[in-house]
């Protein structure tokens, strides 16, 4: 959680490949820890425990994700480089591969089945490379970067309440059961779902189940490894998040604490008992205080829209092990009325109806929301600056979704986007001719495979957004 990288990572083997091809012109520099010549990657010095090796890897043609096979290796008598390549467990870290004017760091994961392979896991530009550009990491905090801790809390306790059910009184789903390839009628078309796409796995978490459980401790298979992720949804504030389930390198699950801040879910982690504000996406009390979870982009939309986007999506079922009247919304007319369930800050900010769904973004102290209904029919794309960040906002009123990404890409250039209609999940294209899906991934064009940088943004009810982020502006 909250692990900074030298520069932002990308996941495009194509870009790497393109860059690798440029290596034709560069002679192998023996002083480098690694060099690439055609499809041969040479690790001039690889440290494995206390031993050192020279290793030659060969790129496997058409592999996706990019993979290398072992060609040859020999043990070295000792270290000669200050910064050698490193194999720790099954992770191989290459600090620098010079490619043209640029230098990349690369992470490969060792996979023994089927056959010994090294799979590209992550890579990025080295900041100190000549001519390299460092795209700034987004400010991870919603609001103040340095909140004052008073009485053990990093937030004001004025609007902190015990909601009534008690810790785990609303039980999280810890063994979710999904329906694979559900038919269209599995859910009412207008029902909202929280959609997640990770690797090849696409899942939808319908509100009607989340309303009763609020947290799903789930696992996703990434590079053959089951990785914990926690999806949370607060029915009172209409906000959904997914966080990677590890805390200081330890797997972690979250539960419903029974507490609310500004009527919004407070989670607790089952490792340390720390409290985490869902909408602040930060621990606000306990041993993990101020820790920011690693976030995963989710898309909240209707089942109908999600099915059009990802017909292969799995659907979370109500086989939860709990006896709950899932067919009934648990909060009466709450989601359509102006009612408040608990006192919240700025409750008199009525610029929008309280339960209007907005997609909001925080950049430093600047906060801005985009009402979903204002996006109108079709797909709307907005290129603008929020705080010091160039963002692209994409949304649709009738298809009921909204998302915000940074327009600055890894090589520091800024793209201009325009809407793409009727091609869901493709929702926008840019001035370079790339097409991008709703998760901000280029699906065609020269940047295919690249991802737009995630921002501090999510969908919530208006009253909740303005309760947390006073002074927010509204896109009209």
């Amino acid at each position, binding site marked *: 959680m909250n692990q900074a990288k030298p520069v932002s990572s990308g996941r495009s083997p194509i870009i790497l490949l393109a860059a690798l091809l440029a290596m034709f012109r560069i002679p192998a520099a023996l002083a480098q820890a690694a060099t690439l010549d055609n499809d041969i990657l040479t690790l001039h010095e690889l440290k494995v425990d206390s031993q050192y090796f020279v290793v030659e890897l060969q790129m496997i043609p058409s592999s996706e994700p990019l993979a290398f096979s072992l060609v040859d290796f020999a043990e070295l008598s000792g270290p000669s480089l200050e910064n050698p390549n490193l194999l720790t467990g099954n992770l191989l870290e290459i600090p620098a591969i010079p490619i043209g004017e640029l230098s990349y760091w690369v992470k490969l994961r060792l996979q023994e089945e089927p056959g010994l392979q090294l799979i590209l896991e992550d890579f990025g530009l080295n900041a100190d490379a000549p001519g390299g550009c460092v795209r700034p990491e987004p400010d991870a905090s919603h609001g103040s970067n340095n909140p004052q801790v008073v009485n053990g809390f990093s937030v004001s306790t004025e609007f902190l*309440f*015990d909601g009534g059910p008690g*810790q*785990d009184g609303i039980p999280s789903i810890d063994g979710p059961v999904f329906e694979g390839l559900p038919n269209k009628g599995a859910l009412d078309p207008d029902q909202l779902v929280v959609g997640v796409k990770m690797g090849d796995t696409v899942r939808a978490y319908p509100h009607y189940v989340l309303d009763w459980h609020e947290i799903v401790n789930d696992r996703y298979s990434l590079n053959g490894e089951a990785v914990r992720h926690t999806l949370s949804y607060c029915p009172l504030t209409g906000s959904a998040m997914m966080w990677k389930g590890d805390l200081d390198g330890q797997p972690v699950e979250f539960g419903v604490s029974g507490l609310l801040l500004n009527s919004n879910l407070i989670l607790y982690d089952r490792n340390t008992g720390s409290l985490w504000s869902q909408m602040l996406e930060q621990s606000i009390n306990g041993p993990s205080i101020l820790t920011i979870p690693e976030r995963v982009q989710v898309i909240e939309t209707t089942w109908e829209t999600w099915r059009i986007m990802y017909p292969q999506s799995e659907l979370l079922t109500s086989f939860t092990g709990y006896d709950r009247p899932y067919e*009934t919304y648990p909060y009466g007319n709450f989601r359509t009325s102006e009612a408040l369930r608990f*006192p919240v800050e700025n409750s008199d900010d009525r610029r929008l109806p309280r339960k209007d769904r907005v997609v909001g973004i925080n950049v430093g102290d600047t906060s801005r929301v985009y009402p979903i209904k204002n996006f109108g029919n079709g797909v709307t794309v907005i290129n603008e600056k929020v705080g010091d960040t160039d963002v692209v906002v994409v949304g649709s009123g009738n298809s009921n979704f909204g998302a915000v990404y940074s327009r600055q890409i890894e090589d520091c250039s800024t793209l201009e986007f325009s809407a793409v209609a009727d091609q869901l999940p493709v929702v926008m294209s840019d001035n370079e001719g790339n097409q991008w899906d709703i998760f901000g991934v280029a699906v065609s064009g020269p940047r295919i495979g690249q991802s737009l940088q995630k921002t501090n943004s999510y969908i919530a009810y208006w009253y909740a957004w303005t309760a947390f982020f006073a002074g927010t502006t509204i896109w009209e």
Partner: protein
Amino acid sequence: MMTQTYRLAALLLLMVLPDLALAATCSCAGTPLMGALNTSTTEQGDLYFSLTSEFHEISDLVQGRKQIDDETGRERSSLSQALAFSYGLSDRWALSGLFTYIEHEREVRSSFFGSKQRTSGLGDSVLMLRYTPLYITPFSRHELSLGMGARLPIGKDDAGGLIRFSEDMQPGTGAAGAILWGQHRLAFNQAATRTLTSSIFYTRNNWENERDYAFGHQLVAGVDFIQNLNTRFSYAAGLRYQHTTSDRRLGFEVPNTGGQWLDFTPAFNYSLDNGLDINLSGRIPLDRKLDGAIQFTTSYSYALSLTYGF
């Protein structure tokens, strides 16, 4: 005299009935006050004190009328201690009062870290003026009493410190309420050793506490058959109907609050020579129809009461 009395009773009912039509639901987590209020018939100068300890288990998870499994193992209970008095201002007028001390407890047994919470403190108080135009005498087998009063929010309603508890875990409501009360006793014999008592108790909660919260209006109607076996021992069996409207915050209904309950209410009373009465009573749910999706509601309750008259 009878006609005037029944007009008064009818007026009281008319004040109550419009709210029945508007009624919604109830969480029933509030502390019951009526059971502990001393409404003994008093003559001028009579003074009664009673001390009631009532335990209230509120752990049934109910959807409408259907009880559903609560796999979380949630246990919720309240224990109230009530000191009540009744003083005869004249042969027809009396003043009743009630002071309470409340303890709430909540535990979620499935909770990962074992969640158990307790709150306690002074609860609400009640002050009521009663008028008894009709007494049971050798010449009349009817007794009628009418009362009017207020629930006074002198209790603690900010339990929890940094993290305030929800309203149902607070000892006091934090808001005043208006109370109307009526009771009719019918004696089946001249010695009044067998009586049928019908009562109605209505609390109107128009006022919000400082967190903009108002509990629902509450109507409790009961009928009890009481049999004196001898001069010391009597028993009672009754039915109690409760109808509570939804709680409100900022004027909006709070979901999953309010409803209707029908309980069986047995009681036993033993009188000692020295003027001390010991009363044991209980409440067993017969039927309930709760508003909203699900609610935790009363599983049972029982009370032990000691009454002393001067």
